[in-house]
């Protein structure tokens, strides 16, 4: 019979009209994101050793990092993510050995102006060095030697 298919279609749509709802009233009710969700970034400053692995892992040069040497440690002074270029691929989070950089569940990163989009995770001055001046050069030389060795090992 011609029109049987049309009636079948109507039956399905009418059935759905009284069926379960699949949407939520969004701004008032929100679906919880999964734990692995790639939302806004979070940097645990105490864990970060300013090694710069995340900067190198990024395909789009999103991360801008500034560091200063304080005593024998690298001190992170600035960590800015140019989120407007971010692909949210997660390669930076994966590259972090110290588990310092992480994704959160925050989804609303929209801004009214383009210049507000940039995500500044750290912006602080470096503290005064406490070390005596005699010790510093020897330690710097050691650090340089270690840095020089590292690439052959990886290659």
């Amino acid at each position, binding site marked *: 019979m011609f029109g049987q298919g049309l009636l079948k*279609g109507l039956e399905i749509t009418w059935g759905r009209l009284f069926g379960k709802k699949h949407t939520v009233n969004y701004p008032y009710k929100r679906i919880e994101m999964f734990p692995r969700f790639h939302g806004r970034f979070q940097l645990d400053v105490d864990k970060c050793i300013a090694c710069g692995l995340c900067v190198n892992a990024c395909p789009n040069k999103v991360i801008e990092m500034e560091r200063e040497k304080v005593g024998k440690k690298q001190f992170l002074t600035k960590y800015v993510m140019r989120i407007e270029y971010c692909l949210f691929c997660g390669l930076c989070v994966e590259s972090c050995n110290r588990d310092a950089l992480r994704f959160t569940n925050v989804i609303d990163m929209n801004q009214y102006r383009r210049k507000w989009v940039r995500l500044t995770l750290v912006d602080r001055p470096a503290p005064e060095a406490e070390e005596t001046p005699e010790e510093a050069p020897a330690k710097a030389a050691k650090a340089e030697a270690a840095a020089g060795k590292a690439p052959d090992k990886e290659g």
Partner: protein
Amino acid sequence: MKTQTYYLNLGPQHPSTHGVFRIILELDGEVVVKATPVPGYLHRGIEKLAEARTYTQVIPYTDRMDYLAAMLMNWGYVEAVEKLMGIEVPERAEYIRVIVGELSRIASHMIATGAYGADIGALTAFTYTFRDREYVIDLLEMVSGSRMTFSYFRIGGVAADFPEEFYPAVKKLLDQIPAMCDEYDGLITGNEIFQARTKFVGIIPPEVAVDYSLSGPVLRGSGVNYDLRKVRPYSVYDRFDFEVPLGKNGDCWDRFRIRIEEMRQSKRIIEQALEQMPEGPVLGKVPKVIKPPVGDAYAEIESSKGVYGCYVVSDGSPKPYRVHFRRPSFINLGYLGKLLEGWKIADVIAILGSIDIVLGEVDC
């Protein structure tokens, strides 16, 4: 009476072109005399961008080709690099790849089905398939953290193992898939108006399909039994029992119908993969800095649109010397100009929709 042909510009901004795609139609009244497809509006130069990235950093860019089945786009690329370096992928990672790949295929076919319904005039069907696709995407989000551009594959395996909550969720979805497909069949496939618009429209003869190197549902709609998962099984596809749905006439209706059948088959594959999945690591032994030896490799997989291939050339540095992608949508479009000749304007939309193109992939 003296008549003359005239030109009609379809697109680039037209909802039925599924993106930014232009067709210049030369018409005699309502009948197409000549059709000239003009792609390239979404060209971003991904192949060139890849030359300035390390091998791992290319993965997020492959997502942006066929963004409706991004997992499959990852797959072709990482397989080519693995072939180049001779990396052994752990078995569990292969199974995970099959599962997320088939889920991606289901999501992509859902869009193809719904969008084709919308092209023909059944806009209701579009909302139904998109609703169901959200549930598939939820699963992939659970696994990879993103809803569209997953970047989940890594050279030598995948980024992470499935979370615990994935297994019950995927089981629940797989149980619903036959009912979902039945719903699409009831809404669109069985509809007489839809059949009148698509049956015996835009017929591609099998020998022409082979000559033009068409692949995927477009080729199988013409009755050519060619599915890479069967004819040249890659990964672990030789361990699954599934059928390759084939069309009879090579018309729009066959191409459309096959996609719904493929969803049912994908469901079967995922069920078997979940059952057979072994324990073990998900990432093989991969050096920290990926530096393939000098040489080249070509790997291909069956994506949702057809045969997706990736060619990688290495000069021994950590960055690829050249990357080329064989995008099925682009090659399937090669026959469009000839195919449209002789059909009416309304059929142009029906034929273009049945090829199921994604412009991100066509223009790369």
